[in-house]
């Protein structure tokens, strides 16, 4: 049970400060990105009017996510942001699924990955808000309905980052802790494959979708 919460870190001293790198997470993130690049290349390298199997899968994913973005944001914004949404979903999906391969770890199991993606979504949403409404209207929203509500509105907005990132982190890390403990208790007999199917494939896919949906909604509500 010693693996519970253990992290492989590379710590570099920079004067008085320390820079820590989570090597496993970085490696896994690069593997996920590599897999996505290969998938994209395979889908798009031999484009034909009569699509092959891979091209159909690729077009299906892109088309569905574009439709989803367009429903929430409208045509104009969707043109800009649907590639981002598409990339976010596929990255999270592969990140959540990669843990079912032995010796692989989900990058989303480490809080840094969901938190940085959540911060990215937050920053983009507020950028869109300022762009579409103008700076003055954007700021005045924080003072609605009363001016003294400002601190609470601000906390409520910041709490969105916490909730979106901890939702993904809690689910993926929770799944992996449950798999670890149950495998340990049952001496790896019988139960773990079912748990991997449920927590890895099913919950992983749902949570990737939920994270993507919430990012879309955060951007869309700022734009309105």
């Amino acid at each position, binding site marked *: *049970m010693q693996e*519970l*919460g253990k992290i492989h870190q590379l710590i570099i001293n920079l004067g008085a400060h320390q820079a820590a790198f989570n090597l496993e997470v970085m490696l896994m993130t690069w593997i996920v990105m590599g897999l996505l690049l290969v998938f994209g290349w395979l889908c798009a390298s031999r484009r034909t009017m009569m699509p092959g199997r891979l091209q159909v899968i690729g077009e299906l994913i892109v088309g569905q996510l574009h439709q*989803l973005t367009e*429903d*929430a944001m409208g045509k104009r914004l969707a043109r800009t942001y649907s590639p981002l949404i598409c990339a976010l979903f596929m990255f999270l999906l592969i990140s959540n699924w990669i843990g079912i391969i032995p010796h692989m770890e989900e990058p989303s199991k480490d809080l840094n990955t969901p938190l940085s993606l959540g911060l990215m979504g937050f920053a983009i949403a507020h950028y869109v808000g300022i762009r579409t409404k103008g700076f003055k209207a954007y700021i005045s929203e924080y003072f609605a309905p009363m001016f003294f509500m400002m601190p*609470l509105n601000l*906390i*409520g907005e910041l*709490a969105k980052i*916490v*909730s979106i990132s*901890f*939702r993904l982190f*809690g*689910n993926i*890390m*929770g*799944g992996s*802790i*449950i798999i670890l*403990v*149950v495998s340990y*208790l049952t001496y790896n007999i019988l139960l773990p494959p079912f748990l991997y199917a*449920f927590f890895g494939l*099913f*919950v992983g896919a*749902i949570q990737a*979708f*939920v994270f993507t*949906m*919430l990012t879309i*909604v955060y951007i869309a*509500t700022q734009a*309105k």
Partner: protein
Amino acid sequence: MSYNIDTWLKLAAYTGGGLAIGLGSIGAAIGEGHTAAQANQAISRRPDLSGEVFKSMLVGQAIAESAAIFALVVSLVLLFTTPANATFATVWALLAAGLSIGLGAIGSGVGAGFPAAEACKGMVHQPSVSKRLTTNMLIGSAVCQTPSIFALVIAFILLYTDTTSSPVWPTWAALFGAGLSAGLSAIGAGFGSGLVAGASCEGIARQPRSAGTVTNSMLLGQAITQTTAIYGLLIAFILLFKPYQASEAIAPAMALIGAGLCMGLGAIGPGIGEGVTAQSAIKWIARNPTEVGVITRSMLVGMAVAESTGIYSMVIALILLFVV
């Protein structure tokens, strides 16, 4: 009469084990009973579809029961394993582990009953969509389990945590507070997300063409309903992993328990309230799928306002943790 640490550990493990499965079976039993009740009604309406309804009732009940099974696992672990390197903080950790999963399983158990019940009912109204309904029910009730999974994670961390390197005072209070925070905060979220999933199953049966929109909106509604449970998880993590200075004073310890209680209790109401908001929104999205944009926006604003009380609790819990 003086007791040594082994006696206290046994005491905590047995009490915790009893609380875990005792509290944990409340919700699942209610949820399953609700499902069966609706299935009976459905079968009496369309006896020719009884096989299909019966099947979906059993599947739905099996998922509703998973929260109680989590509690059973923790109970068995508490009864049959003895923790290594135990200190007096471990005694409280074992008790808190039982409370965490016991309380945490209540909401998800009741909640997961709603989608199963509505799926059984919808199946006889609209037999042609029974496949879509079953898929939606499975997704909805699986997401209902998320709060109880958070409670289970905290329970497992509490069970296997090593307390030898941290001072007994006030660590015991932090561990106990973490269990309370994760367990209590899961009640409202589990119940609320069940309401949302139930509304989506009912909506799909009524208006099958809205199925895709309704499932997407359901996931969104459930995700936001569970936000307060995530705050509970966050406070529990901070309580578990924050380093503490040894002090025999009673005030810092009580502040830590208070933080856990405040976050846990404060999350119950917003969980249920947001669930009710999203339930109604999903119901009307299903009836009027073309207006999904407007309804979603008003749902999100309503939920954000309902959630603000949960945010107040989180602010107070953070103040108790870091300032007091």
